[in-house]
């Protein structure tokens, strides 16, 4: 330590000793106080335990089980005779409850006032607002009277082709069914927004001048009738399924 020089006014010995005492005190090293242990204001356990993330939307629930139309009896008949026979037991509208889809209510998401239209937007593919390939989906059955019955002819077709009632089928509307495909597309979009159709989705193929309407096999007859009535289509519209192609016309 360097020397410390004390400057004072002479006159009083008492005052000098007092000054020396004060100076010594000032030159004493500071007392070291150990810092207190840091404790976070949030619980340590929670900090270590990180909760995972999950989709806010719940998985779809399929509340009641449905089975394919082709039962053992029908299969056996087909094998034995080579000609499929539709037994009364295989009629789904009487004996089997079709699959019913309900979505678990989600309290974490705002209630959608107009759930009929759902535009899926992925980064990189969206944003241009191009009407070239607009599509929509309907998940609500509100306001639609779903007919669970199939006509005998259609029921036979379903059995022959061994289709699942929840398999998607496609109605194709072409220029032969209407004069202006764009006009039909607009009115179809309006109907869908107002939940006028059972669960289905569609898109317009402008390069082919066609409208494709996808729906479950179970509702395809009803959808076909609705399409013809509401859109005032002329001629026959065709229903096709994946791999098989056109299976039904109306």
């Amino acid at each position, binding site marked *: 330590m360097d020397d410390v020089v004390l400057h004072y006014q002479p006159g009083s010995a008492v005052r000098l000793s007092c000054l020396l005492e004060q100076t010594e005190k000032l030159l004493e090293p500071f007392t070291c106080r150990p810092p207190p242990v840091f404790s976070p204001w949030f619980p340590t356990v929670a900090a270590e335990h*990180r*909760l*995972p*993330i*999950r*989709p*806010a*939307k*719940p*998985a*779809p*629930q*399929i509340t*009641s*089980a*449905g*089975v*394919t139309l082709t039962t053992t009896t029908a299969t056996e008949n087909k094998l034995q005779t080579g000609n499929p026979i539709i037994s009364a037991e295989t009629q789904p509208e009487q004996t089997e409850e079709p*699959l019913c*889809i309900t979505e*678990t209510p989600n309290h*974490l*998401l705002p209630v959608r006032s107009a759930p009929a239209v*759902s*535009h*899926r*937007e*992925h*980064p990189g593919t*969206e944003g241009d607002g191009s009407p070239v390939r607009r599509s929509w989906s309907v*998940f609500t059955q509100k306001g639609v009277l779903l007919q669970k019955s199939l006509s005998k002819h259609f029921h036979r077709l379903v059995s022959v082709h061994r289709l*699942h009632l*929840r*398999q*998607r089928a496609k109605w194709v509307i072409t220029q032969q069914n209407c004069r202006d495909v764009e006009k039909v597309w607009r009115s179809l979009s309006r109907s869908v927004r107002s939940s006028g159709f059972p669960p289905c989705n569609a898109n317009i193929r402008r390069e082919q001048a066609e409208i494709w309407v996808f729906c479950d096999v179970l509702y395809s007859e009803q959808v076909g009738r609705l399409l013809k009535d509401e859109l005032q289509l002329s001629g026959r519209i065709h229903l096709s399924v994946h791999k098989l192609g056109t299976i039904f016309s109306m």
Partner: protein
Amino acid sequence: MTTLTRQDLNFGQVVADILCEFLEVAIHLILYVREVYPSGIFQKRKKYNVPVQMSCHPELNQYIQDTLHCVKPLIEKNDAEKVVVVIMDKEHHPVERFVFEISQPPLLSISSETLLSHVEQLLRAFILKISVCDAVLNNNPPGCSFTVLVHTRDAATRNMEKVQVIKDFPWIVADEQEVHMKEPRLIPLKSMTSDIVKMQLYVEERAQKT
């Protein structure tokens, strides 16, 4: 054989593609094997040269695809630590948790043989284990549903932006009750070690399911 870092050849994307494809197959199979959905909506398909069951229900398929589409960026960046398929009872309490623990090496030795053949064989073994796992698990109560939880290496909130890939498919932090399970029983199913990814699958099963 060449040694590459994660930045080379967009390695993370390759791993994410492989894993998400596998997870899609695995989720469909778990839902079938554990009877979360009626068997009528499933169809037999072939993947990794073995038969698997895949849902043909468009809404469910879309949900799974959307989920994995969002998870992919996390796997790509090596931010996902665990992907958990949780089967929940009617009260939304977990009864089973299929935990896929994933880790990716910072350096890798890569070749076409490594990527295609060896990894496929390893993933096939996972699929085969899942398809027979009902033999070691107790039956689930009726009315079960499922969700997918993603445990991130970092705090979940930091990864929220990465996972919000689809506009109308938001993600949230899971509730405590969705994560914790009373008296779980641990059933290891399969583990794999490859040059591009390490993964282990185990099931946590609730002791009292009903």
